[in-house]
């Protein structure tokens, strides 16, 4: 096991470097002049010679005239030292820029994941147990509709009905303007603001997991040991939850781990529609602005998360299912 983990870590380091090289070169091949983009808004305020001087100074500061390989070496060396660089747009260390949206994204995703798992697992079990009944068919249709409708349309419909017409929830944002109250009230205020985006996130994620759980449970319920359990006279509840569900959990558990790892990923459309300062919006805004230090930092972070997530999933197989041996 230990040998396997060490081997995988070496593999992860190799993949990390390859990906960093690819991404760095790809982003820097995108046409456009970051220095011009930065100083252009100042053009109207400056005299021609001032502007030109500033432009040249900015090019030098950004090292744009250097060969790409030299720029990569400089960037990766700094990254390995823990310095992710500075944002072109905000002129702040990248790490400081990522912190607030990362907090928001994690905060939102925790609720989204808990809600989604809290609904989908019981629903998946129930539909499997009641397979081919009206209830099962209705759930299948409803979840697939929620999955199929583009999320921005769902968001607009929800906003119109629940925020504009009924006024139950705010249209967007994360807190009431100039909110004054206790911390608990502030927390409730944030949840109130997040109700609609969370509802949409949950709705759009119902189909996948529900169907996955249902399929695992259907397989499990058709096994011989279920028939044996029933033949022994065990209660239906015991059969379903102690025998069928525990065995169905094996494939589902990897999915759950994937979800937990996705706690760091932002949902660009939802964040944009509801004016939430999250990772999805930061990533897209940074891409649009060609703020590549921020983009690369986010990308590299997600690569690390994916690699670690895959390792945990592989290890969890061995932990959960004694038939699987994780070995070097």
């Amino acid at each position, binding site marked *: 096991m230990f040998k396997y983990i060490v081997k995988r870590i070496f593999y992860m380091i190799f993949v990390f470097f390859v990906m960093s090289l690819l991404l760095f070169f790809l982003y820097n091949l995108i046409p456009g002049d970051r220095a011009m983009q930065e100083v*252009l808004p100042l053009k109207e305020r400056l005299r021609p010679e001032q502007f030109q001087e500033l432009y040249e100074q900015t090019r030098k500061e950004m090292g744009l005239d250097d060969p790409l390989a030299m720029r990569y070496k400089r960037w990766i060396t700094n990254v390995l030292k823990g310095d992710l660089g500075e944002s072109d747009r905000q002129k702040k260390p990248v790490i400081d820029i990522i912190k607030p949206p990362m907090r928001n994204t994690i905060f939102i995703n925790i609720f989204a994941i808990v809600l989604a798992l809290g609904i989908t697992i019981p629903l998946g079990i129930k539909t499997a147990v009641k397979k081919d009944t009206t209830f099962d068919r209705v759930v299948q249709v409803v979840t697939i509709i929620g999955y199929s409708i583009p999320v921005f349309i769902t968001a607009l419909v929800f906003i119109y009905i629940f925020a504009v017409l009924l006024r139950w929830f705010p249209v967007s944002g994360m807190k009431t303007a100039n909110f004054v109250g206790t911390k608990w009230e502030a927390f409730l205020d944030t949840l109130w603001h997040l109700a609609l985006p969370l509802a949409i996130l949950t709705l759009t994620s119902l189909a996948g997991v529900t169907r996955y759980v249902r399929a695992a449970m259907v397989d499990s319920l058709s096994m011989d040991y279920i028939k044996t359990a029933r033949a022994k006279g065990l209660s239906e509840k015991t059969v379903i939850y102690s025998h069928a569900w525990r065995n169905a959990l094996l494939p589902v558990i990897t999915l759950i781990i994937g979800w*937990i790892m996705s706690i760091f990923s932002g949902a660009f459309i939802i964040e944009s529609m*509801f004016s939430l300062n999250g990772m999805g919006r930061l990533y897209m805004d940074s891409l649009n602005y060609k703020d590549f230090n921020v983009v690369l930092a986010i990308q590299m972070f997600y690569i690390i998360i994916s690699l670690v997530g895959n390792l945990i999933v592989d290890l969890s197989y061995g932990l959960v299912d004694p038939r699987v041996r994780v070995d070097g």
Partner: protein
Amino acid sequence: MRKKISFFLLLALLLTSVLAGCGGTADTPAEDPEEVVEDDTTEEPADVPDEEVADDEEEDEDAPFVSEYVGQENTLIFGDTTGASGDWEQFWTNNAMDAAVLELTHKQATMEWDFEGAPHVNETAVENLEITENEDGSATYTWTIKDGLVWSDGSPITAEDYVSGILLKSAPQMVKFKSKLQSGYYLKGFEDFYKGNTRVFEGVRLIDDKTFALTVDAQHRPNFYEQVNASSAPFKLSYWLGEENSIKDDGEGCYFDGEFAEMINYGAAEEPEEGEEGEEGEEDLTADLTPEQQAIFDKYNEMIQKARFGVEDWPSSGPYTIKSFDEQTKEVVLVINEKYPGNFEGVKPSIGTVVIQEVQVETAMDQLKTGQITLLTSQMSGDEVNAGLDMVDEGGFDYVTYPRAGYGLIDFKCDVGPTRFVEVRQAIAKLLDRDDFVQKFTGGFGSIVHGPYGEGQWFYQETKDELLEQIDPYSYEPAEAVALLEQAGYTLNEAGEEYQSGDGLRYRDTDGELEPLIIKWSSSGNEVSKLLTVLLAENPDVVEAGIKIEEDQMDFTELLNYYYREASDEKYASNDYNMFNLATNFNKTYDRTDDYTTDPEKVALGFNGNYILDEELDFLANDIVKTDPNDPDAFKEKFVKFIVKWNELLPQIPLYSNEIHDFFSDDIVEYQNSSMADYSMVILYARMAD
């Protein structure tokens, strides 16, 4: 098996809990400065309306929670699609909402602007202004400020504060901190001070606690905006550099006194010789510092980086002070600065709290409708404006409208291809139905301008009739367009014979070669481009006239590289695009100097983006601001001459100028705005209904 599953679930739960702990929710104890801001919102600050504080103090934690948007007493909630970043002073960045916060906290300048964009001496802050003409052609503006001016923290505003900003923003030290801000360009000695050649800034004098003088260099005179160029606003140096640094003047000009000055070897700056800059790598602007100077750099870098994101301690000389900034939601809360003496008309703010919130274009109007925000400015698209007007019709809301000081345009390169001929540019203008374009693009909320000006600018308003009589409106006239193309020499067909209707593309004989009438158009594929494709590039009359317009779509920054013929890449430097669609906005100072320069060096630097080399146009453009500040009639006369010549040469085709709409709750009264007014003016004059 059971144990393993239990262990795994426990692990997952633990992981979730740990991550939840990282979430920084409101009930997590503050650990870093960003969370301190949140904590502050839960305290009972003195400047929160008394009733709200009392309610919060008495509120039973078990009582049902009700969050209220509406009814926050004397509070204006301003929504904008740009979220503030907290970097107010803009030494390094350029964010519209940060600028708005700066405008609200940075006032008491010696000159201030009115809603029409006209400058006025701020008699609320200025006791006396004396203007002296010097023998060398320069002019010295000696300002005496009034007694009793104070910062929001109660400390006095002195003459030193009025010179501090100019010195710091033009200091060579700030270049080492990678600052993009400059000040004092028009003042005598700027160049030497900025480059670090001299320790003193000759054109900036500190005479006593109440008096300072600014000398405009002779080379920048006359200038219609001279008084503005020689004005200043207070800047609290001690906030940025600590108490140990100050500004002194020994009779030769102002200089930094203190450790900060020791960071630079004044007079040691040398221009690098050609080829000397060959060393590769990011330029280290601090490479020339000694270890002692590097230590000073590090110390002040830390201080400045901390100061730039100030919130409660941010020194305000304006009508508001910053109460809080929430980095998570980008919300800024400002409260009245009771010590603000008023603007140039003596107007003081009456709205107690101003909240700036980030909104999204798609849902901003709904937020206004539901009371989540109370003011939404700068609405320009037809859909948004119509939605806003419907809301006003339903009641509870109001709006104001004003013309944009800027316009969308087709920009020609006048030195390459067919667009080097004025007749071709004029022909294209006559083949585009601009009335139709404006109607379609702005949804009826826009107008056509005929030159580089905004409809709301005072000099246009006062010369409108005279100007419109002298210019060609370039109405839709396909027949006249064909005649113009023939004047430009495009009289041949593909075979080199005389062009007949239906021959397709036109050609001209250029040095024995057949030159086709193909206009290469660099476009970013935006909404304007799409409409131009329909109304111009694919217009049957354009095809019939023998013109082919070829559109290349690209990223906007890529487009700008082509536009400025960026020298770092040959494909940009020698590109042959003839046409771009862009937009422009005007500053308060209408200065067209060098916009149409014929100086080859300046042209090579990218000024005169149209590459139109016309001596008369260059002279007229430069001449506008070279006007006695007390002679607005001369300014207007020069403006008209410039526009008439511009209209004849047509380096651009102005396409549309929007009619801007601001929508707001009818709780806000006496609201006014213009494209020349900054946010502080708008909020200063607005009132909340009783």
